[in-house]
């Protein structure tokens, strides 16, 4: 079975632009979470979706938004890009949102904002 897949793998944008990152969860997984990993730091939680509904968001501005589709894939959108948005964006999927459910990560999308 395929793992969590993310596209694109690498993206270069300029300040002020908009970006859309995509994630396909492991087959059968209904929950998707997004994390931002700045160079030299651990991942920071951005969003969690379950059954197409937002279950929570981290401390990120409204320029960040996301959605989950009926097939459980997800998009992360970032508007009005800033230099500080340059990071590795990780998607993780899990069966559900229970404490015991393991989150499996994709290889991430490396976003560079110039």
């Amino acid at each position, binding site marked *: 079975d395929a793992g969590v897949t993310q596209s694109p793998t690498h993206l270069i944008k300029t300040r002020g632009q908009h970006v859309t990152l995509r994630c396909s969860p492991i087959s059968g997984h209904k929950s998707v*979470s997004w*994390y931002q990993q700045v160079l*030299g*730091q*651990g*991942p*920071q*939680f951005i969003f*969690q979706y*379950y059954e197409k509904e937002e*279950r*929570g968001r*981290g401390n990120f501005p409204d320029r960040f938004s996301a959605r989950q589709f009926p097939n459980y894939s997800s998009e992360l959108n970032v508007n009005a890009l800033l230099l500080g948005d340059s990071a*590795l964006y*990780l998607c*993780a999927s899990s069966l559900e*949102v*229970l*404490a*015991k*459910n*393991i*989150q*499996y*990560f*994709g*290889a*991430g999308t*490396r976003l560079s904002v110039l």
Partner: protein
Amino acid sequence: AQTVTQSQPEMSVQEAETVTLSCTYDTSESDYYLFWYKQPPSRQMILVIRQEAYKQQNATENRFSVNFQKAAKSFSLKISDSQLGDAAMYFCAYRVLFGGSNYKLTFGKGTLLTVNP
């Protein structure tokens, strides 16, 4: 606020030897999960081992084991018989309850492990 602290930014070990990576965390919960993830240069976060707080027994996965000290809020990872493929960034993570019944991961800053041949 829940925090995870990894006090060793970098560690090195000789191939075939044993190394221990440290992690401490802060929480007011009594039942929770702790994880060690490995992130090689390929960037994909790979789950190494998981510990459930209500279990007294330390988790073990082949060459990887943990020393879980609940009272001290300590969760260290021991890698035995280190291999070149173990070289990676290792992150300690804590499963945090939010929004009533949802969970997210809170990560430490990571420890970069180098394995010397």
